[in-house]
């Protein structure tokens, strides 16, 4: 198979120091020959300096000085590897509760989440937290890896018990595709190669799952959503009257000749052409970046959205959403923030906090409404401009937004529209 047929899969991993997450990533990179000799040498040297017995593959992902000194992962680290079938982007995030914001960040673009469970401990608080965040962020596929099977004598009973534990809890999550794989990241069982110690397991290995998972329908291909990023007007001799709208498809399949409606004006027109540097294309679908030209000359600018006349998102100034708070300064009810939604910028004022969610128990707390760093809460706000919003569960790109503190310019929250 040639690299011209490879597809891209983004997945996230979450875990803490002890559950073998770094070992698993190290194993995937090492067994797919994605670690280079000089990287491995550097790891060996660092491990020796710290007096470790084995080469600590965790050092691969812990890139910052502070992380290496403290033996913790502070930030999302992105790692890459590929097989002849797929290129993979790993968003590797720390698993501690105080790093919920990193988990949320890593999960926002992922097609798949790997949740690690230590076979000796079963489903614990952290397992639930990771799974809940994966579900909240709308990751379509979860692979639960029951790790350290070597430490429970590769026992099928131990594995089955954990699968049942997880399924009981997982039924409360809104994820359609949950799979289970018994592995040992340390010994390499069922990661890249099939385990010889677990003949009772006849499912695929982790890498096989990652390589063959169907992701073509992870994007919304039903509702046409084209947020306009920029207007392209060359005004050159060769293109004196060209007027195109640059953007990236956020939903649906747009075809040449389609009737379209432009929000917020409501004007309708037809797609004259869908242009790229290589020439016209007949259709555009997510996540293609294209330039759309319309038959009629209508006033369109950044922040507008091109949709089909019979299928519009809700244009609303009142938004209900789940919010993940990222900042040391807590959310201010009645406070004003800048809001970024698709290519649209507005300001908003927070109306109410309905409840906070305990990420470990999924319990809804309606009494304590102080939303601080790493908290997840249901809120409602009013925006200065209508946002062309879909429910997040329908479309992750037109259903998401961020809030920005207008004083510090920091991104203080990520939101998912309900």
């Amino acid at each position, binding site marked *: 198979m040639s690299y011209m047929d490879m*597809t891209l899969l983004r997945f996230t991993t979450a875990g803490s120091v002890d559950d073998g997450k770094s070992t698993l990533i190290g194993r995937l990179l090492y067994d797919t020959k994605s670690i280079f000799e000089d990287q491995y040498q550097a790891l060996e040297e*660092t491990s020796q300096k710290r007096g470790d017995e084995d080469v600590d593959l965790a050092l691969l992902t812990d890139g910052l000085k502070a992380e290496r000194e403290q033996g913790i992962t502070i930030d999302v680290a992105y790692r890459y590897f590929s097989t002849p079938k*797929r290129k993979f982007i790993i968003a590797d995030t720390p698993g501690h509760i105080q790093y919920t914001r990193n988990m949320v960040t890593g999960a926002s673009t992922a097609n798949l989440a790997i949740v690690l469970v230590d076979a000796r401990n079963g489903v614990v608080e952290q397992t639930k937290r990771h799974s809940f965040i994966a579900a909240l962020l709308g990751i379509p596929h979860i692979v639960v890896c029951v790790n350290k099977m070597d430490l429970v004598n590769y026992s099928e009973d131990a594995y089955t018990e954990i699968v049942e534990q997880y399924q009981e809890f997982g039924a409360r999550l809104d994820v359609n595709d949950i799979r289970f794989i018994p592995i040992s990241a340390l010994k390499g069982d069922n990661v890249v190669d099939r385990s010889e110690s677990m003949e009772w397991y006849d499912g695929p290995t982790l890498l096989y799952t990652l390589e063959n998972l169907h992701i073509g329908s992870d994007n919304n291909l039903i509702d046409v959503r084209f947020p306009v990023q920029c207007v392209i007007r060359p005004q050159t001799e060769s293109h004196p009257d060209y007027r195109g709208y640059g953007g990236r498809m956020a939903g649906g399949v747009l075809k040449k000749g389609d009737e379209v409606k432009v929000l917020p004006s409501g004007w309708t027109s037809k797609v004259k052409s869908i242009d790229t540097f290589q020439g016209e294309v007949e259709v555009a679908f997510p996540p293609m970046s294209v330039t759309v030209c319309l038959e009629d000359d209508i006033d369109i600018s950044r922040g507008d959205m091109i949709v089909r006349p019979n299928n519009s998102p809700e244009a609303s100034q009142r938004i209900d959403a789940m919010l993940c708070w990222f900042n040391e300064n807590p959310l201010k009810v009645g406070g004003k923030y800048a809001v970024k939604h698709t290519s649209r910028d507005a300001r908003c004022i927070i109306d109410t906090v309905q409840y906070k969610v305990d990420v470990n128990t999924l319990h809804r707390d309606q009494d304590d409404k102080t939303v601080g760093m790493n908290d997840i809460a249901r809120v409602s706000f009013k925006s200065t401009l209508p946002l062309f919003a879909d429910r997040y569960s329908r479309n992750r790109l037109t259903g998401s937004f961020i809030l920005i503190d207008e004083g510090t310019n920091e991104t203080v929250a990520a939101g998912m529209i309900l």
Partner: protein
Amino acid sequence: MELFENSLAPKKVSMDNYNMTHLDELESEAIYIIREVAAQFERPVLLFSGGKDSITVFHLARKAFWPGKIPFPLMHIDTEHNFPEAIIYRDNLARQFGVNMIVKSVQDSIDSGRVTEETGVNASRNFAQITTLLDAVEEGKFTACLGGARRDEEKARAKERFFSHRDDFGQWDPKNQRPELWNLFNGRHRIGEHFRVFPISNWTEMDVWQYLKKENIEIPSIYFTHEREVIERDGVILSKSPFLTLKPGESYQTRKVRYRTLGDMTCTGAVYSECYDFDDIIEEVSATRVTERGGRADDKRSETAMEDRKKEGYF
């Protein structure tokens, strides 16, 4: 009505067909980022080194605004320790595509006393160019500098954002980066602050080579095998140049080499390799066992050499 028409259509397009290849998806992501920069920042600039990564970003920028022109200038921080092939390439590119290429010289910064030149056998202008770059950003009032850095290059870069904030001293604070979610990028900044933006963050070395081949993009000749006078020092193969001081016992040898990465002649190592076209390179990269920066003496100074330079304002 529409549903009805679809069901009558002779051939229904399967949802499976709406898949992109990994290169198409990476390209689309990069174009999206570049357009965001043009939309969110008043004065962007594309940092151009003549290396394959910044050539790729330039090519993507052309695509992003086609059939319009790239709405911002390019800027080269010239250490004057460059490979002459890279400079020829740079000047040709500026002529061919009619782009505004700003050139800022590290020598000028040294002459004006803004920085002190390193001395000694391993002297390099790696740190010196930080000052030139930051001065140029300030002088040009640039609010966003597009660059070709990739996260797979180096461990500190693995933590880099697409939109990477720099304070008014040009410093990077890796522990206090803005979270980036979905495709929402926050480029808000105060006066004096700027952003570094890396549209090909998610590309690997292999992706870049595959893309250059797919798009048939011309690159400087020294990426391909040629004969050159070199010495080996600390495992790094260095080219003969006016800037290199030989240690006792060292002497130049003519070897067949090429470069996997382009930096200053004083610190960029060559590799012994026979690659005469993109296919050869792709084959070599897929078999190779050393990262492309493995040949960079500047990264070998210490384990956190890159992080330290980046905090100061390096590319």
